[in-house]
């Protein structure tokens, strides 16, 4: 992460542009669905390949950087594939490939309208997510952050029902307000630093003496800006509403790309803009810890009350995102590494659960938990995958959720806040309380109206099995991600 390890490369730019370049092809082949889906898959694979090719350099500690032209005096549009960025990009682009396959099964299974629009905006969203992952400074970050906001909107309102339109308005009201706060925060930072907005490990603002009456409001502006997408309470209510979107959107965007862009932004703000010293000096880390603990517990409690499966999962996401922010707020290397692991592992587990919810909706037309009795008999693969995801989210070994939660708890204890480990245990119990009844209903209760129903198409079942296996595999062999996360964290907080 030191400037000496930076080399010039256009690969981060290709990773951003490849899915954007696919959009015209997707639009032009709107009458030939197979060709259209080929473009999506091709873009996904190329993007994933680009990110993978950045991985060895990132592990070695070298950063690929693509500097473009100046957008405001002193600030360039610049992409840098540092370890943190590669980490996030790897997850998002890898899961996009699987989600694209799943989307094909889902959209065709439900014979959805306007599939071209759906696939086109999906590609734009991924492009923006890559941009967020690789953004080297705040302006570039905001640029892609806002593109992501806008590009997600057509996916949220995809159904075009009054409910979807209401949800879309709510989504825009929340995210646009957040964008405005973020812009205000960025301009203010620009003024303080005299025109430098580059993310710097240890804090862009670390070298400046800030009074409390500057630092605290500035942090709150940032918190509002990235807090909406990372759905900390009380800024979370758009996320459950956005569940009216098609399930693949909920799966990839509202469990991985969009919300984790917010969380990723939170990590950028805490570790790369403010830096640990500044946050500690004004007790801002404590503020963040209080908010996240509240969100973790309340999110889980609210999840208990939801009958709609996707809404239940959404509240679960709200709660799990705050795990990651909590890790960032602990301001230590081990904690951040644990948080990054959870960023990756929660993605694999939650996307599995959403895929299962979508598969159930497609083949049975059921969306509520109370209608899931006996589903395991007719959809054994789907519900087996669901079980793996549920076990993982509750933090049970050998699923990957256990690994990240374990390290997070250890880091909390190591950082002198053992009571947080108690919060994690409690939240794990709550996770079990809202997820296991679904498994129990599916396998151990007798359902009605299931005669002749079968699994959804292979386009959907294969991806969800793969993500479940991924969750299991990463639980057994977390080393690659662990290494990358540990080194990314060590680049900020020093080795450990």
């Amino acid at each position, binding site marked *: 992460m030191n400037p000496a390890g930076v080399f010039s490369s256009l690969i981060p730019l290709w990773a951003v542009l490849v899915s954007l370049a696919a959009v015209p092809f997707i639009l032009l082949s709107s009458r030939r669905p197979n060709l259209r889906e080929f473009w999506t898959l091709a873009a996904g694979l190329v993007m994933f390949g680009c990110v993978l090719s950045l991985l060895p350099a990132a592990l070695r500690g070298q950063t690929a950087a693509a500097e473009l032209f100046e957008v405001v*005096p002193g600030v360039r549009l610049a992409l840098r594939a540092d370890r943190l960025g590669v980490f996030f990009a790897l997850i998002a682009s890898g899961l996009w490939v699987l989600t694209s396959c799943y989307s094909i099964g889902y959209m065709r299974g439900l014979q959805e309208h306007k599939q071209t629009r759906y696939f086109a905006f999906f590609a734009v969203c991924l492009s923006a997510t890559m941009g967020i992952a690789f953004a080297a400074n705040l302006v570039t970050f905001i640029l892609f952050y806002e593109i992501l906001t806008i590009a997600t909107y057509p996916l949220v309102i995809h159904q075009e029902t009054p409910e979807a339109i209401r949800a879309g308005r709510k989504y825009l009201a929340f995210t646009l307000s957040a964008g405005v706060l973020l*812009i205000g925060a960025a301009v203010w930072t620009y003024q303080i630093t*005299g025109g430098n907005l580059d993310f710097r490990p240890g804090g862009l603002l670390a070298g400046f003496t800030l009074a409390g009456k500057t630092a605290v409001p500035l942090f709150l502006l940032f918190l509002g800006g990235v807090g909406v997408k990372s759905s900390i309470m009380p800024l979370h209510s758009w996320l459950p509403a956005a569940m009216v979107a098609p399930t693949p959107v909920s799966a990839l965007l509202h469990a991985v790309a969009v919300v984790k862009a917010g969380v990723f932004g939170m990590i950028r703000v805490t570790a790369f803009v403010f830096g640990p010293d500044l946050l500690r000096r004004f007790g801002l880390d404590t503020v963040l810890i209080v908010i996240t603990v509240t969100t973790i517990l309340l999110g889980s409690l609210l999840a208990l009350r939801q009958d709609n499966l996707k809404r239940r999962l959404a509240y679960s996401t709200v709660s799990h995102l705050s795990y990651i922010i909590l890790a960032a707020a602990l301001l230590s290397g081990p904690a951040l590494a644990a948080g990054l692991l959870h960023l990756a592992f929660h993605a694999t587990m939650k996307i599995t659960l959403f895929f299962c919810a979508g598969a159930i909706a497609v083949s049975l037309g059921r969306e509520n938990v109370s209608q899931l009795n006996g589903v395991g008999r007719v959809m054994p693969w789907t519900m087996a995958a669901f079980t793996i995801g549920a076990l993982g989210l509750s933090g049970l070994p050998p699923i990957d959720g256990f690994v990240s939660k374990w390290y997070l708890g250890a880091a909390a204890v190591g950082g002198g806040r053992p009571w947080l480990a108690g919060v994690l245990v409690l939240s794990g119990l709550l996770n079990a309380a809202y997820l296991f009844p679904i498994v129990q209903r599916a396998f151990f209760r007798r359902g009605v109206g299931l005669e002749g129903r079968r699994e959804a198409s292979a386009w959907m079942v294969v991806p969800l099995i793969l993500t479940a296996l991924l969750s299991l595999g990463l639980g057994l062999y977390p080393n690659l991600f662990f290494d990358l996360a540990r080194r990314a964290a060590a680049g900020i907080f020093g080795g450990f």
Partner: protein
Amino acid sequence: MIPTNAPALTPLLFLFTGLFIPLAAFKIRKLAYWLALAATAAASAAAVSNIFRVLDGGAIHYHFGGWLPPIGIEYVLDPLSAFVTSVINVIALIVLIHARRTVEADLPEGKHVPYYALVMLMMAGFNGIVLTGDFFNVYVFLEICSLALYGLVAVGDRKSPVAAFRYLVLGMIGGCFYLLGVGFLYMSSGSLNMADLKAILPVLGARPEVIVALAFMLLGFGLKMALFPLHGWLPDAYTYAPTATSSLMAPIGTKIGAYVLIRILYFVFGLTFITKTVPVAAIIAWLGAAAILYGSIQAMAQDELKRMLAFSSVAQVGYIGLGIGLANPWGLVGALLHILNHGLMKACLFLVAGNFRMKLGHSRISRLDQEARRRMPWTTAAFTLAALSMIGLPPTVGFFSKWYLAWGSIRNGSWVFLAVILVSSLLNAVYFFRVVERLYLKPADRPPQAEKSGGAAGGPSEAGPSMLIPTLVLAVALLAAGLLNAFIVKGVLLKILPPGLAGMNP
């Protein structure tokens, strides 16, 4: 073209084209349009090339009739006037390309020739105001363009004469105030030349007649610029004027007022006078902030698209006023950039409204639905892009205007202004999104409207290329100018900054 008389050529070109059109087009009416277009194209090319010439070689002064100032009238092409003339002439060119079809549809054929002649006179007035270096000459050109504009507004639909009359009355009052101000200034200083006055005013100090002169001049052009609360003429005039007039007036007209404000405040009276001696800058900034909120809230309540855009203009003029009033380099850069940016955005939006009127026969928001979008996908896309720009999302131009204005506010520690700028983004989002949502999501619940002018009823019918291409060019310009804004700011705008501000480092 001989460089030394470049400042005088543009206004004279428009003036003589305006006088020549009725003669030349006496027999062949079609000629009027092409003459007007050719003059505007020539003026645009000259204006853009002048920017580079001025940035390289310094300001060009031209003395009319060889009389030296302060006796004679001086024309000055400095970076500021070169920038503003480029903006207005290029936008006018794009709008005029679009205007041919709408003028044919809106006006009876007999009025085409005088219409284009008036457009030329209006452009002569605009360019003259920007290029002259003499305060009385500004008044002359102000009256030329105002008289032309009253005519251009009044040829619109049924209600336009009333709107034009209102505009006439308020415009006259504004002109009178300005003239009185110039009189006071002449009385106390004995000069009308801007450069000359700049040297004399510090000697005079804050004498009452100088303060009154400043107040009256600002009042006069504040009215022209439609700075809240002097905007009363604007909504009706924009709404009821023919499409071509409102698309010319909205992006260009108010900018002239903003230009004169900048010229008077920063280049004649100077930074110290307007911030320390008489704090008019602060007043203008507060009026700008009020305009932003008032205009945005009014815009939400409108049902007619053109009227919504008119109130949006009131708000956008507020941004420029706010930037001017901040009295620091970045506020002023924001204001200057917004002159360009708002010109592009508003032109694009009014052209879209024109396309809707042409093809759907109306531009009522409550009657827009998916059917409109299905028939006019490109126009709708241009509208959406312009709307995103108005909301201020990157990488469109609107984001960067806000960036500099927000920066200027923070530099001054003006948190209220920062809040206003940020909140107004959301207000813009509300009223633009209302339209975008209808266009994309509101199902057509009645049979397709039969339009009054051309096009197969019910069938898909995008606006013709002469209307669509200018709209799309402007929409693409919103993105291009946004991405390239650092070049514009560093290459041109920072060189415009007046002496008092240029020294202040970012």
